[in-house]
């Protein structure tokens, strides 16, 4: 890396633009909507400063949900998007990709986890879950207000793989990589490769030889 890809002057700065936030509250079928009424979160979020569009959607991750977000970005001139739905571990890449397709920087999208960390954990307390869903959505709106566009950092790639373990899985991985013209180091702690499989007689269900 010859040059530091982060332009230090702008990235950590306070955003200069007036926020125009779109909030999308997902039903996730009955996963969210079975515990709390998403419409109430929509109404609550719609009144928060900076929010210019607030709407519920049956499945935000589905084509129809993503299309809605993309169309709204153009229609309402959105410059931030909040998706109140599931875990970032599930769909953060999905919604980052979605807003990017509409020409928005993917780091201007923020998620509120109102499924795994709300309705699924508080089925016994729908009232408490609704309060929490509103707070989590408000926090995502607040964070989104101060998000700045960021660019992914490009790093070079060393064209060599290492496979640790020379059993049946490791040998197969190494062969597959090598056959794609990628050099591989296959590391095995024992004096021979083969792993447990080399110790076996025949293997089920076809009873063929293991080595």
């Amino acid at each position, binding site marked *: 890396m010859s040059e530091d890809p982060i332009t230090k002057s702008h990235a*950590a*700065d*306070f955003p200069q633009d007036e926020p125009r936030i779109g909030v999308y509250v997902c039903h996730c079928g009955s996963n969210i909507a079975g515990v709390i009424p998403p419409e109430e979160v929509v109404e609550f979020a719609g009144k928060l*400063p900076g929010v210019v569009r607030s709407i519920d959607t049956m499945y935000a991750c589905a084509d129809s949900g993503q299309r809605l977000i993309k169309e709204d970005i153009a229609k309402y001139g959105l410059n931030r998007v909040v998706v109140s739905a599931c*875990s970032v571990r599930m769909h953060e890449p999905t919604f980052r990709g979605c807003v990017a397709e509409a020409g928005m920087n993917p*780091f201007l999208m923020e998620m509120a*986890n109102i499924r*795994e*960390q709300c309705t699924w*954990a*508080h089925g016994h*307390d729908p009232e408490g879950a609704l*309060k*929490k869903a509103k*707070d*989590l959505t*408000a*926090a995502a709106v607040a964070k989104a*207000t101060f*998000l*700045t566009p*960021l660019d*992914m*950092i490009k*790093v*070079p*790639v*060393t*064209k060599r*793989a*290492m496979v*640790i*373990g020379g059993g049946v*899985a*490791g040998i*197969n*991985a190494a*062969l*597959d*990589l090598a056959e*794609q013209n*990628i*050099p*591989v*180091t*296959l590391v*095995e*702690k024992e*004096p*021979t*490769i*083969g792993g447990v*499989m080399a*110790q076996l*007689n*025949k*293997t*089920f*269900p076809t009873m063929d030889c293991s*080595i």
Partner: protein
Amino acid sequence: MVDAARQPLIEVKTFTEVEKVEGYVGNFVVTLREKSKYVRADRCNGCGACTKACPVEVPNDFELGLAPRKAAYIPMSQAVPLIYNIDMDACIHCYKCVEACGALEAIDFSMEDKLVEQEIGAIVVATGFSHFDPTPMTEYGYGRFPNVITAMEMERLNNSAGPTHGALIRPSDGKSPKHIAIINCVGSRDKRYNTSCSNFCCMYAIKNALLLKQMHPDAELSIYYIDIRTPSKGYEEFYDRARESGIRFIQGRPSEITEDPDTHQLFIASEDITLGKVIEREYDMVMLNQAAIPQPDQNHMSSVLNVAQSPGGWFMEYHPKLRPMDSPTDGIFFAGACQGPKDIPASVAQGSAAASRASRILHSDSWQIEPTVAVVWPDRCVSAKGQACGICARACPYGAIDYTKGLAAEVITAKCHGCGACVGECPHDSITQLHYTDAQVLAQIRTLLAIEPEKKILAFRCQWCSYGGADLAGTSHFEYSANERGLRVMCSARMDADLIYEAYRLGAGAILYSGCHPQDCHYITGQISGAKRAARLEKIFERMQMSPGRFRTEWISAAEGDKYARIINEMQATLDAIPEDVLKAEIERLRPEMSKRLTKMGEVPGVAQAMAQVDFIVDEMIGKEKGA
């Protein structure tokens, strides 16, 4: 095996261990320890003259000790690569092997372990599994009764390449056994040892029974089982074949094996669920079908690779359904049983799958990584003003910060992994983390505590472990108090003391400071920075006479959903036990103390501006609540 050795693009390094993995996706530097074989790979031609000459015999691990090997050895005749080894623990230094090797001069007693570094773009971890040792299960007598053997011992005994050339014999008298029992789930599905199912052993028991039946048609075979699990293609048919061939399946977990000390005959006492009674049957030989367990060095490898472990000790995948081959570290993938017990077809499939995941990276000229890195505000850095500092550089687990007194600290972006340890530690608030700036995180804290803050449990969680733990609590529907309000940063190291003070100043009822277990930390030592800070905060709050339990530090892995739910419920119980007026009075009493510690916060670029704007959001939230 041979294909791998023959493939010119594969460099096979046996007797080699991974010492250290540094770097990041596309740019790992792996340090390997090539253990000394005392035989030079470039000279050994695999003739075996050294073995013939060697006078020392020791048990051969490859044959599970059922056969001897020499101190100059290969573990098995088909060893790949075919290079001999001198076992220095057994060697008596008679040098007969050196003589036998003669002009080849392949044996070199001066060889030492060698550390080599390799630059690597992506890593596939396929370290496999180990077998449960049934010795602690005294009820089965393994180790005491010679004719009770393990599955792997059976594997070598009926193998034509094994020590008996495939002749099955009883260890006690060398006779061919007629009545043979196989006991399944030895050490698996057993709350004393491993609660989980070992996946492949039902099929494995059937395979061994069928093989024995083929070789010895007059043998009588019984398999003791809890359930027979044959879910893959062709497996149920295989089970049918076994039943049709006359193999007896007895549903019941044996309670005890006893032995006639004179004849070494064995007696298995068990329930037979089909008959509805307790039975005892006599056998010549019993095979214990052992559980698959993680490798003995799995914890060590987990630290070397910086990857987490699931309950039971297996390596933990990024997502069980969506990214089953990925470790949480970009560029490191899992294949085979190191991630959980699996049979050969599944392991082979995973090897290909992991190769495919890795080749996405290896076929690219460059790879993109998240820009959530640290950035210094040079005008705020005290080093630039001539003060000695360097705290950020010491906090960084990756050596990604250049510190020279007199110059502002500088983050080397390509080395920064984005844990935020430097941000959390900088006493002058001169560094921030992109996407997790103070302004952004404080905005979240304020909104989460906008309404009835004294009732709230604010949970700071790291992206990799405790956020995942909270997710798993939900996925498993472990219910916990809805007063919890979660907040995500990348690592507990980023959980700046100022963020905690501010949350208490705003009136938070309780705060959970959570992250990975130390060995699971995604950022090598990030958790250690976080844990030290949490310990300091605990002392400070104790001196302030804050009610115990209002600040709690817990390390919760992504596999500990139950723990996450339990801790939140315990914290709720702690809050419930403090009378409301007492709690409110305590919050008021401590508010000025918290403010005092926050003097610098307002100076952080963007914070004052952001807080003014957040006030409007909070006003709207409170207004709505009052109106409702």
